[in-house]
């Protein structure tokens, strides 16, 4: 029983990380209909930057903040410099971001080599907490990751539903041209969204970098899982991403625990089942698939 609970908690933490990574991807897609296939690369970049900053300043919070801002800036720059011109050619944007992921992965290897890194978690969180009622002992830091994801999710919900910026974004999702015609600088909103979306990948990199190792290849792993979560949850839906990441995290961890050779395949089967039953994803919109 305890093992089941621990596995479930591991699944939830992993899901929390997937949600942090995918929320950025889905926000960008929801507004701009472009997919950033360098998203996993940005996760790894965030982790490495977080490692370097924490090493210099000794503060985990600085590392997380600095990495998120820096990665967001990279994202916004790439968007304005390269992707904006081809925004209506979604396929071309996707392929350009693949090319950038190759360059990014190679440059990161040049700087950080192929070793394993881990961002040191904040001291206060390096404790094992015993959860009440169920009496399961669990690392405090992992619970912190879980709560961070919930906080980010709530924050995004508030931002999208309760602010003027969110109103513009939601309007832009429905009808980009109309928003533009209303005199709103849509381009600025796009840049802001790219910043936010990629910054979330950077933040996830630091949070994940304290839980799992950072090394070449991790970028592809997170790209794969964020794409799977994105497709299962429904493209462009933040709530869908939340549900799907918990689902994928749980399936993957239980599979690792009880049927290890089939772990990745089981996650993929989940994807197929969802695609067959609901091609638009759990909370996606139908018209968008074709």
């Amino acid at each position, binding site marked *: 029983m305890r093992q089941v609970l621990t596995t479930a908690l591991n699944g939830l933490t992993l899901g929390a990380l997937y949600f942090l990574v995918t929320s950025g991807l889905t926000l960008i897609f929801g507004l701009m209909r*472009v*997919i950033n*296939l360098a998203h996993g690369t940005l996760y790894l970049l965030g982790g490495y930057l977080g490692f370097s900053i924490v090493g210099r300043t000794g503060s985990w919070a600085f590392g997380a903040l600095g990495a998120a801002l820096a990665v967001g800036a990279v994202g916004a720059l790439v968007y304005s410099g*390269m992707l904006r011109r081809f925004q*209506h*050619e*979604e*396929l*071309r944007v*996707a*392929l*350009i971001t*693949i*090319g*950038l*992921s*190759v*360059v990014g*992965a*190679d*440059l990161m290897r*040049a700087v950080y080599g192929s070793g394993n890194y881990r961002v040191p978690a904040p001291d206060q969180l390096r404790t094992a907490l015993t959860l009440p009622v169920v009496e399961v002992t669990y690392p405090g830091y992992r619970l912190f990751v879980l709560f961070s994801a919930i906080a980010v999710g709530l924050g995004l919900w508030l931002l999208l539903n309760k602010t003027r910026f969110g109103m513009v974004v939601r309007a832009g999702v429905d009808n980009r041209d109309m928003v533009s015609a209303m005199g709103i600088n849509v381009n600025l909103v796009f840049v802001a969204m790219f910043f936010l979306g990629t910054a979330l990948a950077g933040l996830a990199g630091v949070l994940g970098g304290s839980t799992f190792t950072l090394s070449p*290849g991790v970028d*592809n*792993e997170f*790209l*794969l899982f964020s*794409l*799977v979560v*994105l*497709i299962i949850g429904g*493209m462009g839906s933040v709530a869908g991403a939340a549900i799907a990441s918990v689902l994928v995290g749980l399936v993957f961890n239980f599979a690792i625990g009880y049927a*290890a*050779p*089939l*772990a*990745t*395949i089981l*996650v*993929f089967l989940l*994807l*197929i089942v969802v*695609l*067959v039953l609901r*091609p638009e994803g759990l909370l996606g919109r139908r018209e968008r*698939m*074709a």
Partner: protein
Amino acid sequence: MSRRWRAIALVALLLGLLVYPYVVPQPGFWVVGIGLRALWLGLVAMSVSFLAGYVGLVSLGQLTFWGIAGYAVGYLAVLQGYSYGVAILAALVIAVVAAFLVGLIAVRVQGIFFVMLTLAISQVLYFSTFQLTDVTRGFTGIAPIRAPDVMGVSLNAARPMYYTVLFLCIIIFLGLRYLTRTPFGIALQGIRDNPERMKALGYPVYRYTLGAFTIAGAVAALSGVVAVFYHGQIVPDAVGLVRSIDVLVVAIIGGIGYLYGAFIGAVAFSILQMFAQLFTDRYNTLIGLVFVAILLFWPSGLVGLFQEVRDRVARLIPGTAEPQRTRKAVLEEAAPQHDVVQQRD
């Protein structure tokens, strides 16, 4: 180009390909490292180009079937001790069935969804190679996989292997080219341009697309069989994301949508990679930048560039200008496509 010049150029190309292994210095480098590598790489990239140009689907997952075929040969021939004939045949069948099954799901979606889905599928294979250790031998992979003897000639030698693979590539290329001109192939192009209309005309759009996807999978699988003998082994990294992207890079550099462009891209890619490796450890950065530059500036690749130059030259010489062939615009979505219906000027 007139018909006669075209024929002369083709014969020259064919002769060039035939004498190539005997005239180049350092056969280990030029015949194996560039020639053979470009052939199998071009073959799998051609399956990408076929899907992109004639069905309108850009796949990042062709290495999945390539890898399944490769692993199947390794598993059956080396680990299980079956004869090469059985292993190769079974590997092809397994990979084609896999392509069919994947296609059942994958061809339901289009555009970037197809890119994402095929990418996900290729990664599932990659991560599974570490987990299904009974079949794949995990991290170490399966080795050594020696090439078979065909009629008393060992294909482990560079030249026999080169001619065998060259012959195979030519046959597959001609076969695919023929296919694109059959009613089935023309219907595929109709589906690429306007699936709704084709559906309204009574074409079984889903089944046709699935058929094309399975055929592309078979081509990729053939390349996988060749490549596994080329490498003498199969390891997880061979089916990793970086390799999948390489295949796409080859198709794009050559000119995605042109079947022969895949081989031009493969030659260019092999040479670029081989020589870049001599000068810098960051050759992947270089290749990535070339790839991005092509996407930004010449999305129809080397073939498109060549056609543009040719058209400009033709316009300079009065009297020789032929009606311009419309360029395939796989990546520029809004651009109209006129491969089936002749454009009226």
